[in-house]
């Protein structure tokens, strides 16, 4: 099933004049798509367009069959999870456990089922021992996994990861790959921005290349 589709999308940053153009691109559930290209070629820009953080000047984007411009960020977020290059910017609560329940609490939802689900997710992604740890004392890899767990709490089906391997040592990378495998096995979709050869050789997957703002599918 198609999760995210871009049709002849054009985007331009007014401040720098950088233009990104993408003819047609479909991202499906149960698949991994690698987005590669040199620094400054527009990978982050493309990924932000895919989840509605940036809105295209021309063209159309559909997210789970609905037009992105008719969806609020909140609605998109319940389907698509976005991992920032710098995951500490998407963590808000003091401790790991509070972070998992943060949104449910803000929205005033019944805490009981959320708690059970949070326990389960933390155990599955090897974060259970860190429950009471301060979020900002976590390593980058742990912060990433926590951020992805919170997206799963929100029910995301498609995940966009912006340079997740940057700055991770081998053991954290292995954890990340395991997590990606599990998500794929569950039928979730993944779009991963990366330069890493390791990724491309580990999964024989589709690659989307970018050069100077041009998407060369």
């Amino acid at each position, binding site marked *: 099933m198609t999760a995210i589709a871009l049709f002849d999308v054009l985007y331009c940053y007014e401040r720098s004049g950088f233009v990104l153009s993408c003819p047609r691109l479909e991202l499906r559930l149960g698949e991994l798509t690698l987005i590669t290209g040199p620094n400054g070629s527009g990978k982050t820009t493309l990924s932000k367009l895919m989840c509605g953080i940036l809105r295209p000047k021309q063209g159309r984007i559909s997210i789970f069959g609905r037009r992105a411009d008719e969806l609020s960020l909140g609605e998109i977020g319940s389907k698509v999870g976005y991992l*920032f290059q710098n995951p500490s910017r998407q963590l808000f609560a003091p401790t790991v456990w509070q972070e998992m329940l943060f949104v449910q609490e*803000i929205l005033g939802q019944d805490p009981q089922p959320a708690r059970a689900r949070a326990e389960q997710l933390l155990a599955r992604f090897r974060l259970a021992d860190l429950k009471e740890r301060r979020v900002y004392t976590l390593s980058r890899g742990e912060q990433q996994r926590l951020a992805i767990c919170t997206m799963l709490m929100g029910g995301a089906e498609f995940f966009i990861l912006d340079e997740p391997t940057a700055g991770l040592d081998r053991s954290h990378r292995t954890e990340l790959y395991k997590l990606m495998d599990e998500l794929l096995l569950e039928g979730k979709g993944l779009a991963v921005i990366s330069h890493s050869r390791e990724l491309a050789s580990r999964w024989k997957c589709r690659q989307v290349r970018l050069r100077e703002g041009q998407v060369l599918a």
Partner: protein
Amino acid sequence: MKSADPRVKLLWAVVCTSGAVFFSKPWWMLGLTGFSLFGALLFGADLVGLTRRLKRFLPVLLMVAAVQVLFVRTGAPLVVVGGRVLLTADGVWRGLSAAMRMVIIFCSGAVMAREDSRRVINSLIQMKVPYVFCFSLFAALRFIPLFGEAFAQALTALQLRGVDLRRVPWRQKLRLYSALLVPVLAETLARAENLAAVMEARGFGALPQRTIYVRNTMNGRDWAAVAVLLLVGVFAVRFYYAS
């Protein structure tokens, strides 16, 4: 007056911001706001451009003002609904003065933002302020745009977590805004730590003195402006506490 010596602009900013902190009488606040706006225009601050860039902080500032309006319970009741006092004179006044205070500080900031930071550092050093302090201060100011970016991204991330800002009830909204500060502060602290290490690694602060090549000079107009500002300052203090 765009080319006035940085020291003149600094003095003006000090006069305005200390007024903003110490004044609490309505007419004085209003007068000071006018004085600040006039000064900002005179010194050629880019008020419109800066306002546009800081637009996204507006909700936070409005919240701060609104909280005062709603929660200050003293003073004559202004709006009464069904026997319950909604707005009081003191509350409205506190809200207004909070807003004016922000305008005044914004004006001072806008003028200093237009000035070349090297010129300001040099004039501070010429005024015998320790150079380590001057450079640290300006390193700190460099962090402000970073605040904006981190704050905007945190806000986006929060919405992507499924929080629709329009649907969050009032009381929770306050909690939301304080939660947004967590990633912003964490990142700022981390960067500050890095910056400090990098500066020290390059030998910053190794010697107690530092020479400067370009010296700022005050011309006649600058001295006149300083005299006027000092007079205004002294008279303001004199009459504010007399009345």
